[in-house]
Each structure stands twice: as C-alpha cells, then as structure tokens.
C-alpha cells in the first residue's frame, strides 16, 4: 500500500496540475485541486466577497480562469434558445466581451438544469464552450471565433430530453467530448485548431451526465470515459481503447484520478489501478458505504472524500478505502467540492458556502457564508481567489 500512496503523491503533481489556470470542470485534469491557490484560507465571510456581478441568464457550468480573465456561459430567451459566452475581468468583474449565438439543436431539459449546463474547456489559448443544445463554439481569449460546430446538425439523434451536462476536457491538441444519451450516443476527440473530428466512437446507449477526466499511466495522459457500463480509458489523440472497467458506474458523479489510480463511483466507490497494456484495471478496494450522490469525489493528498445524498462528507484512506471520519454538511449538493491547501470548499444548492479544514485528525467546518442564491455549479480556483456562479450571478471570493 505504501507504494500506491507514494505513487499517488508523486503523480498528483503530474498532468498539468501545476498550471495556474482553471481550464475545465474541476480544474487540472478534472481533479478539483489547485496547488497554486496557497493564498486561500478557510474564512468565508461577507468581507471575503471581492465582487459580485449579475449574469444575463442561467448556467450550471463553472467559470474558467485564465490569467486576468474569467469566462462564463449562459442561456437566455424563449426555450433558452440564445447562448452566451462572456469574458469578465478577474480584477473587478467588468465585462470585457460577450458573444451571443442561437441554438442549433434541441433545448429541452429538466427544469433543474439548463442549456448552459456543461463547463467550457480550454487549452489556455482557446475557450471551447459546449451547450446542452450540442452547440460547440471555439473562441480565442479575445472573443474571436475559431470554429463552430452544431453537433445535432451532424448527429440528429444525439440529445437527451432531460438535458446534457457532460463537460469537455482538453488533452494535447484534442478536445474530448462525451455526448452520451439513450439514442445516438458517442464520444469524440475534436482537433482544437480546426474543429474537425480526430475520432468518434460509439458509446453505451444510456443517459449519462458524467465528464471525462485525465489520468496518467507511465507518464502518458489517458482520458477516462465513464458511463453506466463502467469506465474506459482511451488514447486522447486517437480514441483507441486502452483499458476497460466494465462493472458499472454512476451516470452523475464523475470519477477522480491520482496518477494511474482511478476512484470510480461504482458500487459505492471503487479504486482501481489502470494499466496501458490492455489489461482490465485491477481493483484495489471497494467501499459500498462511500456512495457519492451528485457531487463528484475529490482526492486530496492521500485521502479521498465523498458526499452522499444526506450531505454527509466522508473522508477515507485513498490507499485502503478505510473510513477515517465523517462530517455532516448543510446540503443538498449539486456542486462538487474543490480544494486548495488544507481546505475543502463546497457550496450547497441554497447558496451556502462551507469551508472544511482538513488539517486535523477529523475535518472541521470552519466557516460558512450565505450567498442567498441557488447554486448548482462547481467553484473554480485561481491563485488568490475562488469563483462561483449562481443561477443569476458570479462571485469572486477570497476566503
């Protein structure tokens, strides 16, 4: 077990995790971890609100942070048929530019979610904004359009009448998408420069709201695609299958990786070691009681954290799955937690920010802040601040 934890610790620094930017859902590699936010503390209070601005419409996607810019998406209009990609100044929240588009695909979705549900992704130079309408728009950091796709125009049955929410991620020159649903279900790798498909593979015909993440096997970046069937690992540039864990997994919370160890919301929570030789991932442990609800699990150092449907945060040993402590948070949660240093940050649906100090033997909720608006999105971390969006607004906080 010691070797596993050592690997986790070492590889945690791999695959772009040292990048300062927050470029996709749950940040570097989909980990939810910032190693660059050392300035953040555990104090959520009104004094820690740097600024708050109103947004033009709903959205569930996290903000992206690149340098001094914050990027947000939204949907407005009758049937949410108008899409927005907006760039704000991180310094003061002033709008720098906004681009609007009409939807080209279906906009129907459950009333809790919305068309701007996926978090955009970026390679640091281009923003890739994906919407539940299957509109995929690439813009540079100044708002110049690089390319545009209408995936429903290309694949007419690729939609979910409850709404799609999987967030894309970039690996190298490839944008990885999961457009998974009951009908025309697929995953694709899209060339970040041209918008053309590099690869497209059929996926299980079942609704799926999870997002791809990246993990590292033998210093090679692998994309993990989760579905009700399990998790497959694919080569980001080609889509070729590298491994297949086919014991089923959740279709709402996404997995998290530490190096080549994958923590999958599967039969509770299952840790597997992935390999690049085509072998089935080797199960390390399974804990049926650690069952993440909507919030995805997060790995902080050598501990794995899950939040169940009752709002209970469970901390477990990442090497063994052994439960270390539990703490009851104020739920319910649609948002996933993020972490920096010794602090875990989580926002409930009622807009209450909660900070948990992870440094002691047991977690301690050290501060709360009521923002007073519905929050379903996951926060994003920059060097010196945390950004969170509600249905109507965007905050910059310095806890």
């Amino acid at each position: 077990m010691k070797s596993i934890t050592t690997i986790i610790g070492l590889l945690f620094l791999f695959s772009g995790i040292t990048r300062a930017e927050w470029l996709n859902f749950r940040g570097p590699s989909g980990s939810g971890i910032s190693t660059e936010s050392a300035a953040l503390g555990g104090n959520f209070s009104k004094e820690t609100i740097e600024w708050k601005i109103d947004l033009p419409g709903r959205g569930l996607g996290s903000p992206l942070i690149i340098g001094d810019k914050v990027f947000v998406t939204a949907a407005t209009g009758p049937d949410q048929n108008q899409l927005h990609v907006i760039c704000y100044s991180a310094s003061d929240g002033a709008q720098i530019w906004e681009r609007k588009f009409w939807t080209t695909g279906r906009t129907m979705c459950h009333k809790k979610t919305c068309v701007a549900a996926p978090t955009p992704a970026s390679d640091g130079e281009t923003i890739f904004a994906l919407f539940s309408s299957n509109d995929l728009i690439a813009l540079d950091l100044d708002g110049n359009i690089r390319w545009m796709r209408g995936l429903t125009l290309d694949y007419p049955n690729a939609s979910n009448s409850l709404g799609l929410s999987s967030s894309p991620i970039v690996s190298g020159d490839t944008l990885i998408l999961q457009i998974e649903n009951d009908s025309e279900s697929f995953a694709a790798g899209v060339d970040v420069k041209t918008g053309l498909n590099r690869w497209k593979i059929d996926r299980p015909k079942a609704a799926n709201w999870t997002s791809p993440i990246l993990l590292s096997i033998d210093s090679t970046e692998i994309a993990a695609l989760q579905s009700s069937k399990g998790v497959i690992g694919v080569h980001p540039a080609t889509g070729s299958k590298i491994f297949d864990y086919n014991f089923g997994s959740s279709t709402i919370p996404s997995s998290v990786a530490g190096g080549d160890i994958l923590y999958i919301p599967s039969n509770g929570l299952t840790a597997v070691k992935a390999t690049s030789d085509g072998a089935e991932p080797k199960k390390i442990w399974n804990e049926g009681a650690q069952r993440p609800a909507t919030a995805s699990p997060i790995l902080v150092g050598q501990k794995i954290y899950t939040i169940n449907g009752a709002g209970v945060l469970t901390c477990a040993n990442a090497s063994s799955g052994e439960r270390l402590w539990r703490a009851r948070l104020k739920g319910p949660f649609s948002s996933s937690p993020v972490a920096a240093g010794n602090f875990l940050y989580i926002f409930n649906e009622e807009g209450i920010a909660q900070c948990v100090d992870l440094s002691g033997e047991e977690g301690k909720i050290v501060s709360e802040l009521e923002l007073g608006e519905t929050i379903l999105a996951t926060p994003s971390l920059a060097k010196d601040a945390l950004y969170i969006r509600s249905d109507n607004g965007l905050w910059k906080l310095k806890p």
Partner: protein
Amino acid sequence: MLAASSASANSLDESIASIQKVGPEGEGSVAASTAWKQLCDMDASAIVPLLTSMDQSGPLAKNWIRSALEVIFQRTAANTPENLPLESLENFLSDTGQSARARKLAFDLIQSVDEDKAAQLQPGFLNDPSPELRLGAVELLITEGKTLLAKGKTEEAGTTLKSALDSARDINQIKQISKLLRDKVGMELDLPGHFGFLMHWHVAGPFDNTKRSGFAAVFEPEKGPVDLSATYHGKSREVAWKPYSTTDEYGMVDFNQPYDPLKEVTAYAYTEFESDKEQQVELRLGCKNAWKIWLNGEFIFGRDEYHRGMRIDQYQLPVTLQKGTNTILVKACQDEQTQTWTKEWQFQIRVCDSTGTAVLSTNRKPTPTTDTDRRTSAQ
C-alpha cells in the same frame, strides 16, 4: 472612392460566401474564421447587408454572421454612434420577407441603443411572421387584458385577450391567455384547433417491444400503404385498426386508453390530412416513448429514447404536404421500466407552419370535447 467602395463590397460578399460554406462536422471553419475577422473589421455599412445575408445562410453560418455583425455594431455604438444605420435597420425590420431571426436581431440592436423607438415599434408585431417578435406584442395585450379585468371591464378584456390568443404562438402565453379567458371571461375556446393538433386517428396494436426490439422491428403497418381493414399478428393476438379520438386539449394520443397500461409493446396511429395545395409545413411532435413517423409512406424521423420527458413541439420536422390526401403514420414503443413515471405511452402532434401557426386539414372534424365524443368516435 467608388473603386474603394466596390472593393469593400467585394470583400464583404466574399467573406459572407466563405462563411456560408461552413459544412457538417466542422468543414470550412478555418476559412470561416478568417472571413469572420475580415467582417469584424468592416464599418457600420456592413450591418444591414450582413443581416440580409442571413436569409440565404444555414444555422451555423447565421451564428458566424450574427457574431461579426454584433462586433461591428457594438464598436460603432461605442465610438461613432452617429454612424449606426438605425433607419436602415428599421427598414430591414419592416421587411417581413427577411429571415425571422435576422429581423429579431435587428429589433434587439435598435432596442439596445433606443428603447423608446423599440417600445414604439413593438405593438406592430402582433401578427408578425417572427414568433419571437410577436412575444412582446402579445405580452402588451395580456397586460392590457389583465388591467381591464381588474377594472371589472370583462367584455373589453375578453376582446383584448382573444386578440392576444389569436396572435400568440408561444405555448406559455397561450396557456396563460386561455386560462384568463375561460376562468375570468367565461369564453369557450378550441385550443386543439388553435394549435393544429391532430385529434382523430385509427390505432393498431399491441405489437412486441420485448427488450426494446420493437423500435427497429418492421411490423406490417409500416410495410406499405395502411389498409384500415387489415388484421395483423400482434404481440399475443390478432390486432386490427380501430378508431380513436382524443379529447385532450393538447392532442395527446394515449395508447393506454384503448389498450390498458402495457409494457414492452408497440402500437401505431394513423390519420389522414387534406391539403388544398402542396405546401411546406412542420410536423411538431412531443413524445416520451421511442417513436417513428412516416408521411405519405416516407420515413421522416425516429428516436429511441424512453421516458426522458416530453413537451409540446419537442421535435420540429419540416416536411412537404402534397395537394390532396396526406397519410401520417406514427409508431410509439413502450419499454420495460416499472416506475410510476414510466407508465405513459403516448404522443401529441400538430401541423403548423414554421412560425407555429396552425395549418388545418381542409376537412378537419370538430374537436372532440367529451369522453362521449371519444367513445362515439371509437365505435
């Protein structure tokens, strides 16, 4: 000067043409991006030509053009607002032959710099071809109707709200107005006729859908022209067509009524629609079961999704009606799920134009209003 202007026009046309070439699966995006930047650098004289070009542009190209146009407009509004072509925009807006989306965009641009002008224009859109432009005009009438009701002027309110209903194309507005007219004014309404829902059908089933196999299976009704006197081998017995009319206000054809709640089954519904001319229409369907649809024997679309929700106008299918009799065949499959929210086995469909205005069969039967009507029709 003339040469420069001509060169600029050529550049504009070439850039628009480049954008209009964007194709499926990302084709042409790189060239379009270059053209987009050229468009963004143009002055305000490009705004109306760009709007005009939308009528000949596909959905993706429209978005490229829209975005460039907004960049030009915002820059001009910020730096040289006196150069904004507001009069030309208003003229464009008044041309109902232009793209509906482009006209709504023209209105939004005017509104962004001159709210008084927009407010002045808004009531004129009550019967506009653009459903989105109608929204604001209808909303004004709804507000007026409510004010009249509050003052006890029921008759005048009824006239105002009926006018709003006649113009409304938005589902939520229609529901709101019809509730006011019925509850507060006491007016009888034919909403299925207003929407153009198809109410009278023949149904045949149940056929098999074990393990969801029925969606792909080709059962007898879809093999050729429907013969309403035919009998077929169903899932467990011989089945025949029988008349079915819905009394549902939103045209719901509920297979659980003629067949009782069943699982892992497939059924068909058939109707005919008389058109006095060849015309472009939309078949707008809502369904939470797997479904397929044929018009005049030609497969139009299908979707194998179960119980993820349904709504009016969920799927909008552009088709061409032929002059005379048109046949419409719908297949709906019920799956194996047992949860209470998976009992529905139903669909609704209406015929309308691209703005959502009902297109009615020339021999449309009266709307059934009671269960007795349904039973009588089904006998």
